């Protein structure tokens, strides 16, 4: 019996059914990846082009002659203002020195020479008296000499009402203004009332209030104020001969310039150099301290006030009698004083 031998069938490897899905998924993934890459590249290119365009625009604008001229002009003006204010507020004036000279010399003393060096504040006085008693009195007068100095400044504007209390501690910055002060002092006699003064402007705002603070104000008192007209925009004035005389621009205008957006600040560094912290002025710190917290926010948010302050200045740091000699014949006593003055006396 013949045996039919059949070769064994090879076992065929069969992919699982889910492989088809993987196959298509891989193709879709590849297409998606390529598309995403192209899309992102395109997007990136557009943004780069936009950036280049902006950079080019900025460069062009910066490179424009008109822009540069304008910028140079503004910076030039700003530097000029800074320099001017710095010099203006640091220049030495002799008004108070003359006052010192006139009020500190004994009526019976005779001066021969007066030498002043404003940088060091050193004064040398020589002269003679007819007796030693007068010389002693002269020495005492010099040692005790003091004077009242008036300062006008700018502080944050505040809208006072009869029930409110004004708080000096919130004055924060204090800018002295010689010209504004000198103008007001001319009109001193026109104003006599002692009160807080409000002036309503055309736009309805209450602005530019000036107070005179009594130097004798006690801590428990309300304090004394005197009001003054606030307008200081004087450019030229006529002198006694009818000639026009130039006056330096009031600070108010300059402050307005400094508040411009381009400078990005309300005050310049130079301005700050001329700012006195009210803490330095004892008259202001004692009476109103308790109101500080109440009114602080309002005061900081609003505009500026003008404030006139009277303070007592004792300008003499040292007085030394450096020489005495007796002159025979017509009897007289020659003297020589070395006096050291505080720089405060050279301020307006």
């Amino acid at each position, binding site marked *: 019996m013949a045996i039919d031998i059949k070769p064994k069938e090879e076992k065929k490897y069969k992919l699982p059914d889910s492989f088809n899905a993987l196959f298509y998924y891989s193709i879709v993934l590849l297409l998606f*990846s390529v598309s995403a890459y192209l899309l992102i590249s395109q997007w990136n290119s557009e943004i780069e082009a936009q950036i280049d365009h902006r950079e080019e625009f900025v460069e062009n604008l910066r490179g424009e002659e008109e822009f540069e001229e304008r910028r140079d002009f503004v910076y030039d003006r700003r530097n*000029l203002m800074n320099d001017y204010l710095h010099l203006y507020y640091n220049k030495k004036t002799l008004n108070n020195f003359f006052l010192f000279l006139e009020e500190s010399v004994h009526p019976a003393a005779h001066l021969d020479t007066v030498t002043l060096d404003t940088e060091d504040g050193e004064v040398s006085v020589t002269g003679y008296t007819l007796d030693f008693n007068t010389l002693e009195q002269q020495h005492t007068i010099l040692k005790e000499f003091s004077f009242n100095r008036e300062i006008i400044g700018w502080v944050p504007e505040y809208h006072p009402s009869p029930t409110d209390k004004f708080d000096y501690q919130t004055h924060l910055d204090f800018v002295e203004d010689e010209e504004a002060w000198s103008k007001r002092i001319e009109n001193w006699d026109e104003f006599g009332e002692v009160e807080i003064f409000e002036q309503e402007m055309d736009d309805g705002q209450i602005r530019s209030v000036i107070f005179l603070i009594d130097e004798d104000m006690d801590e428990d008192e309300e304090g004394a104020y005197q009001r003054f007209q606030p307008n200081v925009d004087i450019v030229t004035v006529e002198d006694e001969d009818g000639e026009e005389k130039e006056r330096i621009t009031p600070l108010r205008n300059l402050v307005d310039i400094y508040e411009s957006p381009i400078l990005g600040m309300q005050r310049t560094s130079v301005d700050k150099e001329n700012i006195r912290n009210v803490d330095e002025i004892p008259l202001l710190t004692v009476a109103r301290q308790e109101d500080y917290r109440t009114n602080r926010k309002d005061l900081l948010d609003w505009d500026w006030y003008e404030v006139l302050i009277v303070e007592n200045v004792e300008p003499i740091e040292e007085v030394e009698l450096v020489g005495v000699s007796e002159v025979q014949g017509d009897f007289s006593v020659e003297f020589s004083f070395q006096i050291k003055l505080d720089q405060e006396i050279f301020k307006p």
Partner: protein
Amino acid sequence: MKPIITAICLIGSFSIMAFAIWPEYQDLRESIVRADVEEENLSNIINYNQTLEGITADLQNNYIEEMKKMESGIPDDHYVPSLFAEIRRASYRTGVRIEGMGDFSLNEFEERPQLIETEISFQVEGSYSNFKNFVEELKTNARIMSIESIRIDKRGTTSQDLQPLEYSVTILTYSY
């Protein structure tokens, strides 16, 4: 065949993601940040330009007088004879007599190096009240003048001598 294609597709996809899409995405993020910065720069420069225009117009139209005064206060030149002339004019106006013009020197102003400080000394004679007016005149002069020192001398030897006083004055002025 399908497995090979599938393998190639998967490897290709992950390669593209890792070596193309991811770096490109990082670039895109950087570009977006840069674009924001540039946008801000652009906005700033436009605002700056507008502000410059406003300030320039304001200075040129509303603050002419003030600018002139400041320019007079710190002139561009430090020509000393013109300074002497100003002092002489002040003396005429106030009744003091110039006795002599002394030394002068030009120095760099330490506090503001862009400024030149001119120190000038001179002698005048006149009454005390006239001298006070003279000093006041210097103070209110358009050009900024600061008194550095003064010396007051009585001329006569006794109080009966009514001769005018002698004054030696040193002042400082400034220019660019």
